[in-house]
C-alpha cells in the first residue's frame, strides 16, 4: 500500500522527541493536578489527559499518512470548512468562561479556532508556494493572504478569544516575513503599523485602554494578573538549581496559582525540578523546533518547506508565549504549553501539526 521507502524514511528521531516531551508533560501534570484537587479528581483528570494524548497520537499517525501535496490541492476546501465551523460556533457554540468557543459534535467538544490555525497555515503555504520569490512579495501578492487572515481573525475575536486571534496573526505574520517581503513593502507595512498604534489607541474607550495596559503590564493589576505573576515567579525561583522534588512543591501544593494545570503548568515543573528540569525541557523543545526547521530545509517542494516552517512556527509561539508569561516576560495570555498543559484541543492540533511534519519528512527523498 505504501511506498517502502516511506517507511524506511520514517522519522524515528522526531517521534522519540515527541514521546519524551509528552511523558515529561504527564509527570508535571500529575504534580500540578495533585496539588489542587482530591485524589479522585486527579485520577479522572489524569486519565482524561492520557486519553487525549492517545487520541492525539492516533490522529498524528493518520495525518502522517496523508501526502502533504494533497493538502496543497485541498487547501481552499479545508480553509472553507474551518471558517464554516467558526461561523457555526458563533451561531450555536457552547458558552464557557464568558465566551463561545466550543462546538459539540457527537461526544466531542471541539474548538474550531484551534483547527483554524492548521487550516490557515496550509492555505497560506499554498498561496506563497507559487507567489514567493527571492525578490520578495509585493503589495499585490499580499492581498489574498491578507483576506485569508482577516476572516478567521474577526470570527475568533468575536467569540471573543483575543489570545487565539493574536496567535493566529503572529503565525501568519511569521510565515509572511519568512517568505520575504520586498524591502519597500516591508518598510511601508512597518510604518503603517507604527502609525496605526496611536490612532487605534485614541479611538479606544477608557476601560479598553486599561485592559490593554494591564495586558502589557500585569503589575498594574496587583490583585489579579500581577498577583499570579508574583506567585508564579516565587514558584519558579524557589525551585533553584535542582528543585524541591517530585510532588514536593509548596507553592503549587497551596494552589496559589490559577490554572496551574493548564496555563501555569511550567511553574510547577520549575518548582519541583529546578533549573535542571527546566533545562531538559527547554533543550527538548529547542531540538523539536530545530528538527521542524530541518524538515523544512530538506523538503524539495516549496509548498512543503513553507508548510513545515508554518507548523514549526505555531509550536514555537506557543512555547515562547507560555514560558515567557510564566516567567513574567510576557503578558498573561491563555496559551497552553504544547504537549504539557492539560486540555484536549491543543493536544489534537499540535499532534496534527506533527503528523504533517512527519509526512513531509518521510518524503524528503521523493522528487517534487
Amino acid at each position, binding site marked *: 500500500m505504501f511506498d517502502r521507502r516511506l517507511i524506511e524514511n520514517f522519522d524515528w528521531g522526531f517521534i522519540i522527541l515527541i514521546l519524551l516531551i509528552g511523558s515529561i508533560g504527564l509527570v508535571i501534570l500529575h504534580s500540578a493536578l495533585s496539588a489542587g484537587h482530591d485524589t479522585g479528581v486527579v485520577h479522572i483528570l489524569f486519565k482524561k489527559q492520557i486519553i487525549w494524548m492517545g487520541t492525539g497520537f492516533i490522529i498524528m499517525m493518520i495525518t502522517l499518512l496523508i501526502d502533504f501535496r494533497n493538502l496543497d490541492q485541498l487547501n481552499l476546501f479545508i480553509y472553507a470548512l474551518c471558517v464554516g465551523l467558526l461561523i457555526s460556533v458563533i451561531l450555536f457554540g457552547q458558552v464557557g468562561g464568558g465566551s463561545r468557543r466550543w462546538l459539540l459534535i457527537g461526544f466531542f467538544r471541539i474548538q474550531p479556532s484551534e483547527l483554524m490555525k492548521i487550516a490557515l497555515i496550509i492555505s497560506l503555504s499554498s498561496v506563497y508556494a507559487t507567489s514567493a520569490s527571492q525578490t520578495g512579495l509585493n503589495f499585490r501578492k499580499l492581498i489574498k493572504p491578507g483576506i485569508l487572515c482577516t476572516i478567521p481573525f474577526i470570527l475568533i475575536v468575536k467569540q471573543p478569544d483575543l489570545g487565539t486571534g493574536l496567535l493566529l496573526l503572529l503565525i501568519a505574520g511569521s510565515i509572511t516575513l519568512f517568505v520575504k517581503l520586498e524591502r519597500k513593502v516591508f518598510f511601508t507595512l512597518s510604518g503603517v503599523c507604527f502609525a496605526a498604534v496611536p490612532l487605534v489607541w485614541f479611538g479606544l474607550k477608557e476601560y479598553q485602554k486599561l485592559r490593554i495596559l494591564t495586558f502589557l503590564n500585569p503589575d498594574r493589576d496587583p*490583585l489579579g494578573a500581577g498577583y499570579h505573576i508574583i506567585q508564579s515567579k516565587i*514558584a519558579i525561583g*524557589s525551585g533553584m538549581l535542582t528543585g524541591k522534588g517530585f510532588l514536593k512543591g509548596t507553592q503549587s501544593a497551596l494552589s*496559589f496559582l490559577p490554572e496551574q494545570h493548564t496555563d501555569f503548568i511550567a511553574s510547577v515543573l520549575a518548582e519541583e525540578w529546578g*533549573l535542571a528540569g527546566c533545562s531538559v525541557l527547554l533543550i527538548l523543545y529547542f531540538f523539536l523546533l530545530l528538527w521542524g526547521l530541518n524538515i523544512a530545509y530538506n523538503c524539495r517542494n516549496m509548498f512543503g518547506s513553507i508548510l513545515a*516552517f508554518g507548523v514549526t512556527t505555531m509550536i514555537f509561539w506557543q512555547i515562547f508565549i507560555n514560558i515567557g508569561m510564566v516567567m513574567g516576560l510576557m503578558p498573561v495570555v491563555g496559551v497552553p504549553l504544547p504537549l504539557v498543559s492539560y486540555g484536549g484541543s491543543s493536544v489534537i492540533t499540535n499532534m496534527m501539526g506533527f503528523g504533517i511534519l512527519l509526512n513531509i519528512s518521510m518524503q524528503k527523498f521523493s522528487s517534487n
Partner: protein
Amino acid sequence: MTEFNKNPDREWIKKRLIGASVCVLFVFAILFFRLIYLQIIKGEEYRRLSEKNAVRLKTIKPSRGLMFDRNKRLIVDNRPSFNLKIVREDAGDVEKTVEKVAKLIQVPFRELMDSIARAGKGAFYKSVILKNDISREQLAIVEAHKFDLPGIHIDIEPTRHYMYKKTAAHLLGYIGQINRKELKTGKYPNLKSGDLIGRYGIEKSFEKYLQGKRGGRQIEVDANGRMIKILRTIDPVSGLDLNLTLDFDLQETAQKLLENKDGTVVAIDPDNGDVLVMASSPSFDQNDFIGGISIKKWKELMTDPGKPMINKAIQAEYPPASTYKIITSFAALEEKHIDINTTAYCPGFFKYGNRVYRCWKKYGHGELSIIDALAQSCDVFYYQAGEKVGVDALAQYARGSGLGKKTGIMLENEKTGLIPTSVWKKKRYNESWQGGETLSIAIGQGYNLVTPLQMAVLMAAVGNGGTLYRPRIVKTIEDSHGKIVKKIEPEITGGLPASKETLNIVKNGLLKVVQGARGTARGIRLKNVEIAGKTGTAQVFSIKKGEKIKTEDLEYSLRDHAWFVCYAPAQNPVIALSVMIEHGEHGSSTAAPIAGALIEQYMQGFLIKDGLTE
C-alpha cells in the same frame, strides 16, 4: 535529484531557514537566562518567600454609598464591623483552633465549622469568614488570646447601618449576601461570595451606584499568618452617595402615625413629583438582614398577617372607593354629560333595572350639584353620572390620569392596579359587561384597583393644574467628595384629561370636602392652611341586603379600608398625600387625621421659612 537543490529559488529559502534557526536559538537563550536569573540569582529569596508561603492577597472592602434626605440629613450610614476570620494554612490543626475560639467567644463550634465548610475546599491560604460582626467583648477576648490562636485574625470592615430602623424601610430597602446562583449569572463580575448586594428598595435599584469597587493588598506574613509588611495596596473606591427626595422628619412622623396600623402614607411634591414620604406599615428592621436574617425572624415576617415585607405604597392594590369620583367627575364633565349646574336628587338609593343601589347616606343627600356631590361624596349622583359615561369612557379617563399603569418610580415590583373595560371582562371572565357594574365602577368599587402611589401622583396633578410627574426618589448621586455624578431630573409623564374649567370644578369640590360645612373630612381643618382632598371607604366585605351589622362587630380582616387623598394648600399646593389604612373603616375618621397632622407639620416648616425670608 540535484537540479532542484541547485535551483537558486531553493537556496534563498534555505538561507532564511538558517536565519529562523538562529532566531529560535536567540529566543531560547533569553528564556534560559531568565531562568538562571529567577532560579539561581534570585533563587534564595524566592525559596524563602515560598517556604513561608509568605505573600498573601487581602481584599479591602469598599464602603457602600450613603443616603441623605432632601435636607442632607444622613439616614443610611456604614459602621465598622469586626469580622472574625481564619487562614487554614496558618492555623495548624484547624479544628483545634476553631474549638478554642468557639469556647472563648461562646459560639457553638458547629456554627463556625459550618461557615468554613461553606467556603469550600482548596485555597487554604485564603481568609475565610468564621463570624461576621462580633461584639467588642468578643473582640477583646480574641485579641487577648491572639498568640494561642494561629491563623485567626480580625478584619475591621465597613458594614451597613440603617440609623432609623423601621422608618422608610420599604423604600430604602436592605442588603444581603450574594448567593452562588447570582454569582454564576456573570452579572456581578466584581463580586465574590460573601459580598453584600442590595436586595430590596433603593438599595436594590441603585445597586450599581452604591456598590463601589473592592480594593486589595499584597502582604507578606510570618509563619503564624501575621502581617509583616505591606507589599502593595490598591485602595477601594467607595460607592456613590444618594441624595433622596425624602423629607425624613415628615417620614418619621408618618411612620409613628402608622404604628399599630396596617397601611401606607405617600406624600409627593406636586411641583416635581418628588416623593417626600413613603411609609408602609407594619415595617421591619433592615439591620436584621445584613448578616443573613435568622430563620425564626424570617418566618415571623412572612406569616405576619399585616404583610410587613410588602411596600403597600406600590405593591398593594386597593379598590379606590370614593376617591375614584374624581375620575368619574372628569369623565362626566369632559364628555358633557353634566356641567357645573346639573343637579340630581338623592333619596338615599338609586334604582337600576330591578336592583337598588344604595348611597352611603341612608336617608339621602337631597338635591345637589357636582361640587356638593363631591364634597359630600354622594353615591347616587355618581351612579347617574357614571351610567351616562359608560365603563369604557371611564377607563379612558382613568388611564389618562395615570391609573392602571405603573407610575415609573425607580423601585422593583411596582404593581399596575386594574382599570376594567368591557373588553377586559370578556377576556378575563368571558362574560359581557353588565350596566350595573358600571355604577359600582363609578364610585370606585367593583373590579377597580389602584396603588396608593398612583393616587398620590393623581392628587399632585390635580393640585398643580394637571401635570402628571414620574415619582422621583433620588435627586442627585454624588461621590464622596461631594461632586455630582448624576442628576435625575423631574420627568413629566403626561397631563390629566381635563380642561381648566373641569379641573376647577373638581378642585372646588375637593376643597369643600375639608373646608365645606358638610364636607366628609371637615374634621381635619387647619388654622392656616386650606386642604383639598377626598375620602374613601373601600368595601372588603359586602353586607347582604337587609342585613344589619355594626362594623365594630365585624372581624378585623373584614372591615373596610379607609382612604384619604389630598393636597395643600388648596390654592398653590406644596404637598400631595395619599393615605390608606387597611381595615380603618372610614376615610374621614382614620385616614384623614393622619394627612392633617402631616400637612400641619410640613406647613410649619414652610411658615418658618417664609417668616425668615420676609
